[in-house]
């Protein structure tokens, strides 16, 4: 053996060692250890990637469909917000009105948060044609402003939308029940403000079909002034329907506008106007959450299995590290960093595929061809645009990061109980 003189190494600089290594060496060792069993690493990282892909795609479509549902639902009738007399929402009778409707409408239209505003008066009435009568909601609307807050005018299937002062725009189901056709006259009779009889005659100029049978058989729209006159309402209105730029801003806008409203008048956002929509979204979100939790749990178990194998296979190596002075905590940290590296590999693959797919679909959307009936019933749009946001793209990777680290940590903690003499006797 030809060796140089065995010169003594210089003394150790600084304080005596603490048995932990720098993050750089940890990373290097962890990264190389990861590829000692490449097949296992690829399988585990593939599981992480696949679950990230599934979670990102499902969450993006789920939240994207919520936005579409909210836009569709608020755009049909309710608007993003409504200003009402304080009791009208719970007790929608004619007397619960806003007295100075026109003035309040003008004030609300001045707000920079409001994109469109439209007044409505409403009264339950008996709608008759010849011998046939049905109960329904007669809704007086401004034919110019109403289409800016409601998509009902776009659901027209026959005729025109309120072209004259005595026009009626009737749901197709109601028209069928009454045997109505375009051009027929209908008689409306209800209870006026002071208890007298409210009566008016209208001509059917348009029919609508929203796909929501409940709506189509119970509503008819007529010009605002005709209903105000018939029900002795003067300038009163029952609702001022408001649209902001985005349904998600409605609550904040409502909070800003509320202090300026007259006494006895309040503003409600869509969340309060359409509680069934919020409940439907919450139920769907909970069922989605259960699936995500199960998916993450399965992946975490797979990672835990992978690292349990790692700890068993490398027991002698860990025994050696403890023998030369490395503290068990340092070894645990090294294994957790391996888990982190595993997550990085899986996330890089899963994120690259799902992010690029969602970015493209977020722009063009996905049509729900053949599901129009269901879409109408559940207030879903005809085309779903998956939501591309930090929440939809980042939640799954971050949750899996925690899951992966915990899954790596649990078997790694076994190292803390390792006895070096026994560990050194283990077979590799």
């Amino acid at each position, binding site marked *: 053996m030809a060796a*140089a003189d*065995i010169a003594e*190494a*210089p003394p150790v*600089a*600084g304080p005596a060692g603490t048995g932990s290594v720098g993050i750089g060496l940890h990373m290097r060792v962890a990264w190389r250890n990861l590829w000692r069993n490449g097949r296992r690493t690829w399988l585990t990282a593939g599981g992480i990637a696949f679950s990230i892909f599934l979670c990102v795609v499902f969450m993006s479509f789920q939240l994207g469909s919520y936005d579409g549902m909210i836009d569709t639902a608020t755009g049909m009738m309710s608007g993003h917000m409504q200003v009402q007399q304080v009791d009208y929402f719970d007790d929608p009778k004619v007397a619960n009105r806003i007295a100075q409707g026109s003035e309040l409408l003008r004030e609300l239209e001045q707000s920079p948060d409001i994109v469109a505003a439209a007044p409505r008066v409403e009264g339950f009435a008996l709608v008759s044609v010849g011998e046939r009568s049905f109960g329904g909601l007669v809704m007086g609307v401004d034919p110019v402003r109403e289409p800016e807050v409601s998509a009902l005018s776009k659901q027209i299937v026959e005729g025109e939308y309120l072209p004259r002062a005595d026009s009626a725009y009737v749901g197709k189901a109601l028209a069928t029940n009454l045997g109505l056709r375009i051009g027929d006259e209908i008689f409306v009779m209800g209870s006026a403000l002071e208890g007298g009889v409210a009566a008016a005659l209208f001509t059917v100029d348009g029919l609508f079909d929203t796909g929501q049978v409940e709506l189509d058989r119970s509503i008819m729209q007529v010009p605002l002034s005709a209903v105000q006159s018939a029900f002795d309402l003067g300038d009163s209105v029952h609702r001022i329907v408001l649209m902001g730029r985005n349904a998600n801003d409605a609550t904040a806008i409502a909070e800003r506008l509320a202090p300026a409203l007259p006494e006895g008048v309040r503003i409600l956002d869509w969340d309060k106007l359409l509680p069934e929509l919020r409940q439907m979204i919450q139920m769907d979100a909970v069922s989605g959450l259960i699936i995500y939790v199960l998916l993450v749990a399965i992946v975490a178990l797979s990672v835990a299995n992978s690292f349990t194998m790692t700890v068993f296979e490398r027991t002698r190596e860990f025994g050696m590290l403890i023998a*030369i002075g490395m503290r068990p905590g340092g070894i645990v940290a090294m294994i957790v960093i391996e888990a982190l590296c595993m997550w990085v590999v899986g996330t890089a693959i899963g994120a690259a595929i799902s992010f690029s797919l969602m970015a493209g679909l977020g722009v063009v959307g996905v049509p729900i061809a053949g599901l129009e009936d269901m879409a109408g019933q559940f207030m879903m749009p005809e085309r779903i645009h998956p939501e591309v946001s930090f929440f939809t793209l980042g939640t799954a990777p971050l949750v899996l990061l925690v899951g992966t680290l915990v899954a790596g940590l649990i078997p790694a903690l076994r190292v803390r109980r390792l006895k070096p003499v026994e560990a050194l006797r283990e077979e590799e």
Partner: protein
Amino acid sequence: MTQHVVECQGVSRTYQDDAVPVHALRGVDFAVGTGEFVSLAGPSGSGKSTLLHVIGGLDRPNEGAISVDGEDINALGDSELADLRLNKIGFVFQAYNLIPVLSAQENVEFIMQLQGVDAAERGERALGTLDSLGMRDLADRRPGEMSGGQQQRVAIARAIVTNPVLLLADEPSANLDTGTTGELLELLKRLNKERGVTIVTATHDPMVMGYASRQVHLRDGEIVSE
């Protein structure tokens, strides 16, 4: 007066093998002076490896006192014992036990990184130590790319690069052929002579015993001759 690096007084170690107690060490009194090259010899089960392990703080005795470089091992907690092993004791194992994903140089540097030595000094000292053992040309090779003898030399480099007060070698020649064992023993002897490294080996290889300046024979957990 001879300074003792290791002092054992009445050291006993008993294992439980199922329900049967195995007395690996029975009241051993033993001391190693600074600069000695001691061989613990004896057949399998004689207690030589157990004695090496309790001296190295890898195992704790049931009875008796052990001090290494003046530190009472029984009084040290697990963390302090780890620091003692890191800073004062070098280990050479039968199976080399290098970190397989690190190169020879990185293996030697690893222990210095545990001590907090900065990167430049680590590299310099690791290469210097490998050079002194004739391993500089193989500094970039990983353990799987080296022979048994080469791996054992890297293990020795790792053990001595921190200037330990004590080098413990457990059956260092067990996996080596006769030629390589000879080279390894020459190396240990030079370390002992030229650097004054105190060495204790556990072995049943007569060749290793022959290189030691002092032989201690154990049988059934007791020292039977010196």
